[in-house]
């Protein structure tokens, strides 16, 4: 054999992710794929097609809808589930709030990011999910850089970074006690650039939010925020129209846009290659403290 058969980095990452998805299918009774309509979970769905077609997915797609999502992302979510003919389960943070299980934050920048965990844990209990596949990557944030690919959570959904199982070679140990849950991250080893290069290579469709468009915005803590019915404006806020795109898509209350003219995947890849800030730099929820992500994960956040 010659080195011409050597797999490219994207092919290696793809093969590793398919292998992990198939391990989930084999090792768990009731897995789920957490799907938000963002680029990382869209890639997960694409990888699941590669792992299980011509068969059906051995898990439903599950979205924990905060009620603060972009309409474009929700429409995309529904259209994708319908196109591939897979089951989509949606559960609402608003229901948890109405039931008194979750309390909405107060203040000028209220976010539903933290209370999303309440609805997620309830949904896991409702369907008795034993594994939840997520699109988190280790390059996103320093606490995530520490997490295993099979990440065991206790019956409270809590992650204990000091008690992680050793994870050797590519042998994953998914054995858990009743009530425990494993979060599985098949694209742990991908970077933001890998994801975009993969989207280009596989010609994967994305919500229009990722590409440049005109939008009403306000400036908050030097970040560009989309104007929506979910944020309260006061006299100090100046609404402007700018050409922007979103580098990461979460809630409208905590996802900042970036000013950008990039309206094709090629443009976006060029933009990321010269960017001097991380993707998470536009997430207000991570800027709250040095250990914001770690604390949320200990609390059951995905």
């Amino acid at each position, binding site marked *: *054999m010659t080195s011409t*058969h*050597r*797999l*490219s*980095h994207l*092919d*290696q990452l*793809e*093969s*590793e992710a*398919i*292998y992990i998805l*198939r*391990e989930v*299918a*084999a090792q768990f009774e009731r897995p789920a794929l957490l799907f938000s309509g963002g680029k990382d979970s869209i890639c997960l769905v694409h990888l699941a*097609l*590669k*792992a*299980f*077609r*011509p*068969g*059906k997915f051995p898990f439903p797609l599950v979205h924990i809808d905060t009620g603060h999502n972009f309409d474009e992302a929700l429409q995309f979510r529904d259209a994708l589930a319908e196109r591939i003919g897979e089951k989509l389960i949606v559960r609402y943070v608003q229901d948890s709030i109405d039931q008194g299980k979750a309390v909405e934050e107060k203040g000028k920048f209220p976010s539903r990011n933290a209370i999303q965990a309440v609805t997620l844990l309830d949904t896991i209990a409702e369907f008795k999910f034993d594994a939840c596949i997520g699109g988190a990557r*280790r*390059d996103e*944030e*320093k*606490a*995530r*850089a*520490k997490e295993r690919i099979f990440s065991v959570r206790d019956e409270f959904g809590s992650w204990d*970074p*000091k008690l992680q*199982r*050793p*994870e*050797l*070679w*590519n*042998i994953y*140990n998914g*054995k*858990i*006690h009743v009530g425990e849950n494993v979060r599985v991250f098949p694209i*742990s*080893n991908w*970077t933001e*650039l*890998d994801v975009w290069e993969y989207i280009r290579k596989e010609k994967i469709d994305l919500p229009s939010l990722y590409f440049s468009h005109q939008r009403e915005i306000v400036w908050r803590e030097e970040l560009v925020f989309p104007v929506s019915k979910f944020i309260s404006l006061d006299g100090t806020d100046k609404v402007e129209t700018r050409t922007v795109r979103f580098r990461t898509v979460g809630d409208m209350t905590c996802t900042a846009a970036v000013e950008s003219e990039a309206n094709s995947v090629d443009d976006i890849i060029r933009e990321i290659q010269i*960017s*001097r*800030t*991380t993707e*998470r*730099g536009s997430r207000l929820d991570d800027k709250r403290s*040095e*250990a914001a992500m*770690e604390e949320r994960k200990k609390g059951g956040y995905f």
Partner: protein
Amino acid sequence: MDILRFITAGSVDDGKSTLIGRLLYDSKSIFQDQLEAIERAGQVNGQINLALLTDGLKAEREQGITIDIAYKYFSTPKRKFIIADAPGHVQYTRNMVTGASNSDLAIILIDARKGVIEQTFRHSYIVSLLRLPYVVVCVNKMDLVEFSEEVFLNIQKQYLEFAKDLNLKSIHFLPISALNGDNVVEPSNSMPWWKGKSLLHFLEEIEIHTEEESPAPRFPVQNVIRPQTTEYHDYRGYAGQIRSGHFTVGDSITVLPSGLTSKIKAIDTFDGHLTTAYAPMSVTIRLEDEIDVSRGDMLVVTGKEPVVSQDLEAHICWMDQKVMTPGSKYLLRQTTNAVKVSIRSLEYRVETSTHEKKEQPNLGLNEIGKVTIRTAKPVAYDPYSKIRGTGSFVLVDEGTNQTVAAGMLL
């Protein structure tokens, strides 16, 4: 572009996290917001503390030590790199083994002032046991020994003396200062006597050994894909990842451990059919005959079979607080296979710093020894020294569900 996965090992305060920070910083892989975050966190000796880039846990930042592995990513136009930043403390040896198990190369750091110490021995032994093809010994903190060539050469000599009994195929030495960046990404002006490459240049150039070229094709079955739809009424595909070698349509196949035979009818992917597939591709294989194949079985090319046995010999690294006593039962996971086993005997424990073999009744946390194992069903495997993907296993305690050992079959 390909991927090089490497681990950094060394004792506490040898500067592993600083070295990684330096690699990322000098190769311009650190983003502005990450830099601002560590700048806010304070300085060390008037410089930003690059170690903070990898110590991601609160407890790590509080104590200034690395507790668990952090994975870091960067790429140059030549290669994508995945770094496993492993802890140096003896108590976290199992985490170092975890990081090494997925690496192609180990960087072992030595403090130039201290020379080769016990942790150097321990980590080198683990790297040798896990058969990482390359070791790069970085003699760090050269700035604190006046960039002395003599100090560097003495450490090199001392290390080679120790390493002659180890299975290290390729050892390279580099004098560096991670704090100042000498020979990390850019060549050093302070060590004109050093004519070699910088660390990054070296990492970009070395050839990665892969198992795609192995003469022994191995395909552990993960799942059976049976859509049972009108369109795919009779479809029965075996999904899995090729561990070594390659498979071609028409190859004669033996299924292990059953020994049943057939031929490859098709190799399917979502993107279409393939004539030949190579390690480490994830594919779906269909056979010409309807024979019994399920998860845990291994497809191999007939005539190139691995060992099939119920009696195994292996080196294991024990990773649990509860000691391993011969006679205990565990679940062994090897490739996609899970089988109950009993530890028959502990032949010896290895003193990792001296390679001495000692007899003792049981194996404790972070200890390495040789065991014999009896399995409930026959297991198909290759010696770890030949194929990592089929010669490695973990043991799971079925009471606690914890992964309690890493094993390498002999």
